[in-house]
């Protein structure tokens, strides 16, 4: 039976060899040990010796061809033997050595565009991983920090210092900033400068597109509106608020107001409004009800000896509550001047953070809109808010006779967690008395 001569594997990494030259021709007699051909690897030329004796029956590759190792390259046996079984698949016949068609090369286009390296123009300030994590946790804007590490790197101590300086923030405000869309001011309006949700300003980047459809309009709740929404909801969700309502005689107030209007220019009292008078009275009466001039925070009631009176101002940007600090120590005309200043600042957007911080009690006045009574919503952590309604003629029993007098409706919302109903009612009672005797209070 004919034997195959195999292309040897002359080295570990050799996969194919070039058949350099045949030393025997087809038909030649071959002795075992005789050289049949020379082959070449990348390293050397070497001889392939025959392991058998016989006649060279076939050569499956021509000189110069590259042959994979372990492939049959020739057959040796008795003349006349059939060698087809030994012919390796894909080997050209001696006669016709047509090159086989090259395998189709599929062009593969990159799914991704070319990698471009854009020159770095802006580099964030260098910051250590630890400092970055601390900043993230505490919502510190690292772009405002000056690093004290080597080469100005922001390191842990820089962020820590910023955190210590950083205004306290309510959990809601933190969450809102963390969720994005809001920037926190450096000072908040909460007690000790705590940043409240109301203090957050919408990020410039967040200008929502309004989606309109045929028969209704969808207006995303954004910006101050959203702050207000969140804040009011939190107020209702996190406090035990209820509202007491009563009327108060407003005749004295109105009379006094007329007198002021009629007063001479040099006194500078002409512009004192009804609202200013109300603020004045509230600031004085509160001094006797410090349990309502208070903040309720984390199970502690902070009672304040002086009255920082916040009052609601309706502006195009939404509801703002500036604070008249130490209102109880200001005269009526001082209160009036301060309220005018604050209101103007709210309207033109120049209100300073300090003017928004640390109110201890709030007054909100819907009197001009002829509201009979309402339930103001608390401005936590304050424990009470006074709503002032419109002035209406109401019948009153005076020594058995019915008289009609001008009455103003008062709605006091308070946090039952901090104050009970009776003290609140007594406050309202004293307040009503104060309005009725405003001239006396002015004398104190």
């Amino acid at each position: 039976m004919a034997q195959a001569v195999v292309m040897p594997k002359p080295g570990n990494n050799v996969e194919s060899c070039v058949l350099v030259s045949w030393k025997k021709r087809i038909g030649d007699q071959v002795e075992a040990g005789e050289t049949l051909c020379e082959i070449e690897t990348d390293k050397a030329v070497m001889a392939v010796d025959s392991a058998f004796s016989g006649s060279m029956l076939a050569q499956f590759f021509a000189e110069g061809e590259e042959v994979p190792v372990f492939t049959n390259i020739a057959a040796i046996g008795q003349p006349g033997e059939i060698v087809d079984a030994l012919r390796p698949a894909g080997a050209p016949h001696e006669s016709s050595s047509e090159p086989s068609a090259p395998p189709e090369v599929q062009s593969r286009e990159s799914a991704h565009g070319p990698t471009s390296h854009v020159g770095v123009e802006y580099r964030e300030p260098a910051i250590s991983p630890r400092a970055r994590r601390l900043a993230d946790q505490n919502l510190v804007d690292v772009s405002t920090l000056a690093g004290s590490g080597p080469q100005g790197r922001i390191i842990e101590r820089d962020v820590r210092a910023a955190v210590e300086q950083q205004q306290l923030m309510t959990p809601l405000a933190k969450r809102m900033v963390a969720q994005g869309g809001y920037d926190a001011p450096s000072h908040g309006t909460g007690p000790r400068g705590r940043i409240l949700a109301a203090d957050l300003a919408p990020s410039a980047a967040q200008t929502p597109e309004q989606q309109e459809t045929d028969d209704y309009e969808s207006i995303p709740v954004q910006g101050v509106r959203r702050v207000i929404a969140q804040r009011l909801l939190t107020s209702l969700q996190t406090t035990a608020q209820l509202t007491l309502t009563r009327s108060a005689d407003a005749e004295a107030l109105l009379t006094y107001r007329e007198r002021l209007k009629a007063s001479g220019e040099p006194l500078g009292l002409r512009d004192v409004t009804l609202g200013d008078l109300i603020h004045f009275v509230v600031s004085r009466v509160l001094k006797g009800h410090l349990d309502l001039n208070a903040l309720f925070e984390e199970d502690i009631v902070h009672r304040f000896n002086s009255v920082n009176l916040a009052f609601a101002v309706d502006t195009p940007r939404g509801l703002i509550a500036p604070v008249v600090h130490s209102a109880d120590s200001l005269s009526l005309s001082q209160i009036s001047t301060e309220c005018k200043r604050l209101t103007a600042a709210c309207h033109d957007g120049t209100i300073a953070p300090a003017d928004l911080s640390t109110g201890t009690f709030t007054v909100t006045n819907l009197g001009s809109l002829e509201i009979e009574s309402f339930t103001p919503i608390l401005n936590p952590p304050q424990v009470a808010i006074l709503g002032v309604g419109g002035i209406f003629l109401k019948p009153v029993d005076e020594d058995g006779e019915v008289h009609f007098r001008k009455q103003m409706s008062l709605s006091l919302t308070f946090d039952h967690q901090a104050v009970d109903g009776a003290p609140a009612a007594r406050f309202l009672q004293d307040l009503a008395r104060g309005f009725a005797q405003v001239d006396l209070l002015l004398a104190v």
Partner: protein
Amino acid sequence: MTKLIPIDPAEARRSSVVAGREVPVNAYRSNPAREAQIFGRDGLVRIYRDMVYIREFETMLDRIKQEGAYQGITYDHLGPAHLSIGQEAAAVGQSYHLQAHDFIFGSHRSHGEILAKSLSAIAKLPEDNLIDVMERYMNGRPLRVVESFSRGGAKDLAVDYILYGTLAEIFGRENGFNKGMGGSMHAFFSPFGVMPNNAIVGGSADIAVGAALFKRVNRKPGLVVANIGDAAMGCGPVWEAFMFAAMDQFRTLWDSDLGGNPPIIFNFMNNFYGMGGQPQGETMAFGVLARVGMGVNPEAMHAERIDGYNPLAVADAVARKRSILEAGRGPALLDTVTYRFSGHSPSDASAYRDRSEIDLWRQQDGLFRYGQYLVENGHAYQSLLDDYQADITERLTRVLAAAVSEEVSPRICTENDGVGDLMFSNETRDRMEEGKPDVLIPLNESRLSQTRAKQRLGLDEQGNRLSGLRAVTYAEALFEAMIHRFYQDPTMIAYGEENRDWGGAFGVYRGLTECLPYHRLFNAPISEGAIVGTAVGYALSGGRVVAELMYCDFMGRAGDEIFNQMAKWQAMSAGVLHMPLVLRVSVGAKYGAQHSQDWSAMVAHVPGLKVMFPATPYDAKGMLNLALRGTDPVVFFESQRLYTEPETLEAGGVPVDYYEVELGEPAVRRAGNDLTIVTVGATLYRALEAASVLAQEHNLEAEVIDLRFLNPLNYEAIIASVRKTGRVVLASDACERGSFLHTVASNISQLAFDDLDAPVTVVGARNWITPPAEMEAAFFPQKEWIIDTIHERILPLAGHSLSTDQTTHEIVRRNREGT
């Protein structure tokens, strides 16, 4: 270095000549009648049969490598196969008279020797003994496979077992003798005295001497043969092995009942080529290789050239050398002439030799000629010899079928770190063998009674440091660990340069000379390669050994022995061998560029070594105790700055009693929240100084961690500290570039990235030579460097004035300059 050998100037200066002993060349004369008597008919025929086994086994490998098939079984073998076709007579002749307890060590070309030695052992051992060996080896797993295809009796089973175990090893299979972890060039089977073969040229020489030393010291029977090639005569460690094996002290100073010089034959399989270079005539100058013996000792190593193409001449030579070795008059050198028909390896185009030369040797083919001799002398008919060929081919076909099968012979599982599990033996043994240790005096009369009586803590009540004269020092702590184990483990020996009398260059062994006979503590020649290489051979033979290299810098002389031998043999043997070898090296100072280097990074880089570096006396004793009870190779770094230091950091001082430090656990030396300083070695004390400056002047509390271990190393304590402090600087006396601290730094960066407040920084010695002692402060890290580095790269320190340049620019500059 012994007072027992006075040097007489009159004798030293006397005029005379050195006369050489003659070196016989091919002195063997065939005498068929005598040979028939010595070997018997069966023996003579078995020699032929064994040669056919080897010839056909390697022909099979050749076919597999060259043609991808043998007897119709196809296989693609990716690994090496250095064949010895043509050299069979030398292998079989050598093993004929060897017993199973005689050891042979070999080279990259040792398949033939594995088979010859094993076949010889099978012929000699009783059947139940053979079954016992096979049942025990790897829990009988390879045996179960062999039983499935073997035919015949127990001896046939054993032969098939040897063929299968060797082939499966060559093919990298789990049923191989070394689970495939050794492969063609490292395969061995110790139960039959086939000891590790070595892919490093000449690598077996000193290892074999260590095995012979083991036999002498522990009074074991048998001799050891180192089979190496003629080209190995150019290798320094081979010459070092000669010096070590030939030392006079074995006969002059050692107890005579031990039997004199280690029983070793250096057998050079002289096939006249080292790959493509020719030692004789081209790359060396000995003319006749055996001549080299004349330079070694007055007996000229009993060297002779023998005819490796006649198996009977080789067997005769081994038998004659055995009686010399048994008389304690070794070592012996054999220059065994042979020739390989096959190339060095499958890629060898034999460009360096003529076909006609191969043909000449083929005409003298030892196998063919020996067959003729048998027929001519009436020991066998040609038909019997032919039957062997057929039988062995058939047997090998069965073996091959089993060995190539992925189901029957799977590879080791590399998922779940299957190779990793083999890296260390992780055992603890009080003694490597039972028995009473040879000692000269009772332990309580030794110097131990003095060190024990010293203050154990190096601080007085006021916290002042005591001198090393009053308190136990680092060196004495090491001594206590050494002497403890010497009195526990009868196999334990220690040697190195100036180890006896002098007590080691730094006096660690002072007091041991009085306790230990020479064979347990002796001076080695200045042959660092052989010091480590023999220790490797001693340990893998089953003994505990402490080798000492005096200066860390001298590890360069023992590179192969440390990196390729000591580190590798446990894993390459798949756990068959243990390596209870502790290599003590000392990091120096003051002696300049070649005596002051900390090369711990190099050894930590090489897989397979445990690396320890204690910095306090407490750790010196506790860690050496740990190393000396284990079964793994340990490179044990010491620092010359510390030898005379007492314990000042461990409150309880150095315990008198035995204790061990927990493997791989760093020690927190000072607690702090602001910064972590990690050190290796003596730099610990400079780091502590830096820490007090930081506390006093900058209100920063540094946590100082002493790594103690380089490998294995538990990072938990380090990471916990960095989590806390966010800042870490690492310092040691090693040159900064490539320092092991960079490995630790890289791991810290990965394990604690988000906790970092600054880049992890490394303070090392400058990338210079070590300048003179007076200038060392500019070379080794000082406390100022640590503080400056903190200031420049971690945390600017208010009011700090710099004394060195530790800027990042400087890092760039130094690297650009290569310094």
